[in-house]
């Protein structure tokens, strides 16, 4: 397997302005030094609660939000070093699927116009070929040709999400960021769309960065899983390992908090105290220490390093002092 995407120490700070002259008075550290790799044809699931920076990370990787610093290497090119023109050319390889199917389609454009736009922008094929491609794409996402001349408001959430997926596939990308693609949908429609995404990944070999707050959804589509808290990745491992044995206290709490649809299996909850601290003023040391049931004095002082608790071939990374030597002593 070869690496498709490598992200190194990516940061995205949003300035907070205030005072008399609109000076920058603080920064919201939405993404605060995230590194990971994504291999060709695999899916990295990114899970975390609202405000943890997962959506910002997804957009920063595509440079839809200009990152503050870091490296984004896609197919060997550092996206951060590209000028606007070169970046536009690179957009053919990378696409995004959005959360809100009601906001992600241009309300005044027909479905045909929406799906064909990427082909028009990048001047791919003749007009006839583009039309044919659009019809193919509809077939892939399971919609009929008749929808082409209609407008988004005529469709249900699940159908709109399929249209959005068709648009993102138009340029044959090899990397797609899926930002909470099913969280706005009803349960029965959710699984239809998840199956579609899983099938696309299998059949087209597309790599996904799949963002969700729902660990169950993440499990269904992901090969590897990263857990985010306050702008940082706190645990990163293969899906199998992470779900079998979560190591970071936050991941454990997150897992136990999911309501289980079975009245006989009352889960043993790890109830976290308090609230997530503000990303404008994250706590010193480990960002999770204010709510961590296993926090040690050391956690308040030093940011935990990334530790591999797995093997060389099957790494399982945790950013936690419980697994470092100096804290143990």
């Amino acid at each position: 397997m070869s690496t498709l995407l490598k992200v190194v120490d990516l940061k995205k700070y949003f300035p907070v302005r205030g005072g008399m002259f609109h000076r920058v008075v603080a920064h919201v550290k939405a993404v605060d030094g995230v590194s990971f790799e994504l291999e060709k044809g695999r899916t990295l699931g990114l899970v975390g609660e609202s405000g943890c920076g997962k959506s910002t990370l997804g957009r920063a990787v595509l440079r839809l939000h200009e990152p503050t610093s870091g490296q984004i290497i896609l197919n060997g090119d550092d996206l951060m070093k590209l000028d606007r023109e070169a970046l536009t050319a690179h957009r053919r390889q990378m696409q995004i699927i959005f959360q809100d199917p009601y906001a992600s389609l241009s309300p005044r454009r027909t479905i045909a116009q929406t799906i064909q736009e990427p082909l028009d922008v990048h001047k791919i094929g003749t007009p006839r070929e583009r039309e044919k491609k659009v019809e193919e794409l509809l077939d892939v996402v399971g919609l009929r040709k008749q929808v082409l001349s209609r407008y988004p408001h005529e469709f249900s959430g699940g159908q709109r999400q399929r249209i959005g997926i068709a648009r993102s596939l138009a340029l044959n990308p090899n990397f797609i960021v899926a930002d909470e693609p099913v969280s706005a949908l009803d349960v029965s429609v959710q699984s239809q769309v998840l199956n579609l995404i899983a099938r696309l990944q299998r059949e087209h070999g597309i790599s996904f960065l799949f963002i969700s707050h729902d660990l169950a959804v993440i499990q269904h589509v992901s090969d590897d899983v990263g857990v985010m808290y306050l702008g940082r990745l706190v645990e990163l491992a293969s899906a199998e390992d992470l779900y079998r044995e979560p190591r970071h206290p936050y991941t454990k709490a997150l897992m136990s908090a999911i309501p289980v649809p079975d009245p006989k299996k009352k889960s043993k909850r790890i109830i976290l105290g308090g609230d997530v601290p503000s990303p404008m003023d994250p706590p010193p040391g480990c960002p999770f220490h204010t709510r961590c049931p296993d926090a040690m004095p050391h956690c308040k002082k030093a940011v935990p390093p990334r530790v591999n608790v797995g093997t060389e071939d099957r790494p399982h990374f945790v950013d936690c002092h419980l697994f470092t030597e100096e804290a143990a002593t």
Partner: protein
Amino acid sequence: MSSEHTAPLLSVRNLVVEFSTRYGPVRAVDDISFDVYPNETVGIVGESGCGKTVTGLTLLQLIPMPPGRIVQGSIKFDGRDLTKLSEKEMQEMRGSDISMIFQEPMTALNPVFSVGNQMIDVLRRHKNLTRRQARELAINMLDTVGIPAPRKRIDEYPHQMSGGMRQRVMIAMALSCGPKLLIADEPTTALDVTTQAQVMEQIVKLQDEFHMSMILVTHDLGVVAESCDRAIVMYCGNIIETAAIDDLFHKPQHPYTRGLLDSIPRIREERVAELPIIRGIVPDLLHLPDGCRFADRCPRATDECRKDKPVVNIDPVTGNGVACYHPMG
């Protein structure tokens, strides 16, 4: 179960709620009957548009009229028919005998008054208390729902609190007059998983303490499994199944309930290639089929199902019932 011995606290019979739209009347709730017994928690589940929220709002006469209208049916609470009460009598009922909490605590709280002021208002409206007594009681309530430093937080404004905090305040407010019935409409949907767990735990604990009955309106079967005694499944304005919680989850009788249970994304031992789905989409309330409303999506549907609509037959022993000609074994 207490159901065989005591009289129900709430008894809904043949309730029909209609909304007039420019395309004609739409029956959001179509001929539903159910009972809620003292100290019981009943879940009303279904996907968006099934009528579960309208049902909850109608109990308190909170639907906008017009365009809404109670066409027929009775809502007996503690011996009185709520549909026959005047608006003034209903106002006395709301917040004192029956309380409601909503999905979005931010919009349910008035942003320009402090939390304390709003709580004191509610208390003094229903109880003969001085301002000081009401304030003490409010502080007590905030403490009961698990808000740290209630004496300090009572003077804060809604925007100064996190989502979880605000929902706790809403709960404190709803319970402050000691209601006999609490209607909770998606109380944790807007919250993060870990906060969700905290808040749900609190609600269940308080329900015990206050000896109330509760109607939990939600789309999340996981939440129902963990906190309800009995559940009602709604589809397109009808009740299609009602059963004790263990029976519903282990021996679902209606194919829709079955499909819903199967398609919930849940954490599994092994990753599966295809998630089970319910094919098709929910029919439009304006163009409902004559027979069973689920027939078009149902794997077991026959001609009989398409001709006549099945009704719920309640088993007098178990209290379970299903509206289906071909229930699952």
